[in-house]
């Protein structure tokens, strides 16, 4: 299973490097969202500073949706889904591989958005340990759930609009948890943030288990 996951992740990342969709579309989109938030809230600098954690994670979610849709769009093209079914790859391995690939892309995106927030919003970064833990755990939660819902929507003609409708409500707890943890880190009260990291860890663990067992049947239906 891990061998299959590694094969899929390596292939997906190579696809992204060669196609540069993430670099040319997702990253500019994410930065544009940050800039628009800055324009909208700039008259009240205090409000912008206060809302920075939430704006950051909303930008991550919206941009991450593009990466997740892309992850399954490449499998829907020209008989690739059938080829995957015939490949002998274990469905759980495919799920873990796609999750890993999405997570790596999200981590790169989050780093760039972090720089964007620091520059555009003038946020001073504190509580590094909690920030990093939040980023890792929230990324795991978003990518595990996103990959599972991605395969649900993959076989449908309306997948581009269906995936956000399915996924955004599901990821609401992650958005809340990551925002609260960031607020705690940036306000110098990290002890208030760690329970949210724990909550997101449970969320990610539940979706990993659901994905390992559910991805195969869902891929059959897609």
């Amino acid at each position, binding site marked *: 299973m891990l061998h299959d996951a590694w094969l899929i992740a390596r292939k997906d990342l190579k696809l992204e490097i060669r196609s540069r969709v993430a670099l040319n579309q997702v990253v500019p989109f994410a930065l544009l969202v940050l800039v628009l938030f800055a324009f909208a809230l700039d008259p009240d600098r205090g409000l912008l500073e206060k809302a920075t954690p939430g704006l950051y994670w909303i930008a991550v979610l919206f941009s991450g949706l593009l990466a997740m849709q892309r992850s399954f769009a490449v499998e829907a093209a020209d008989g690739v889904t059938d*080829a995957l079914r015939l490949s002998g790859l274990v469905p759980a391995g495919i799920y873990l591989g796609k999750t890993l690939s999405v997570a790596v892309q999200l981590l790169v995106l989050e780093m760039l958005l972090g720089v964007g927030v620091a520059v555009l919003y003038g946020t001073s970064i504190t509580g590094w340990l909690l920030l990093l833990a939040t980023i890792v755990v929230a990324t795991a939660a978003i990518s595990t759930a996103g990959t599972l819902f991605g395969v649900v929507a993959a076989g449908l003609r309306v997948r581009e609009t269906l995936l956000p409708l399915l996924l955004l409500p599901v990821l609401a707890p992650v958005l809340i948890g990551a925002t609260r943890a960031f607020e705690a880190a940036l306000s110098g009260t990290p002890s208030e943030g760690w329970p949210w990291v724990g909550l997101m860890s449970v969320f990610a663990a539940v979706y990993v288990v659901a994905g390992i067992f559910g991805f195969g049947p869902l891929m059959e239906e897609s």
Partner: protein
Amino acid sequence: MEPDHPTSRSGTEPVVHLRGAVALLGRFPALAGVDLDVDRRRIVLLRGANGAGKTTLLRALAGLVPISAGEAIVLGVDLRVDRQSVRHRVGLLAHGTGLYDELSVADNVRFWTLAAGAVLADAESAMIRLGLDGRLSDVSVGRLSTGQRRRTSLACLIARRPELWLLDEPHAGLDKEGRDVVDELVRDAAAAGATIILSSHELDRAIDLADEIVTLGGGVALDDSGAGGDGHVA
């Protein structure tokens, strides 16, 4: 559940054994009771008009389309009980290429080879066999001609070393040289112990290639089927 093992004319267990096999696409019976036996090392040509059920039959044999009634045993696996476990043992050349456009020819062939549990040497030799080594190997599949894509799909298939080849219009989009390569691959595969079932509208070429011919019409095998009928090519 172990299937009852049928025997063929040769007295051995057939690679494909269908009796009254029905496959539904929605509510439409694309296969409406197909009878078919195919022995190991045989090359079987499926012919029939568009919509006769050739593609559905090939996809059903690959375990991609469920059999809803009748018997269907492929490589000893009862498809009505378990469609998954036969899949990695068959190679399907379908209408879609099954390739990633943004990846190079070499990346595609290597990925599908490793996915099937074969080794990189198999991928390299498959590319050489299909004339995809050298300059072409680093070209993105999206930039290839239709014929070159077909060759790449074939390279992915042969690198997997399947026991049962299911070829849907394998000559389509290929030039004469490419078609000759396909015929040579099919003959070599059969000689090496594989079984090949192919559909083709290039009947002159395909009839020369085939050991048996099965005509499909309306989702059933007509009188020259391999199911006890005389489908052998003289």
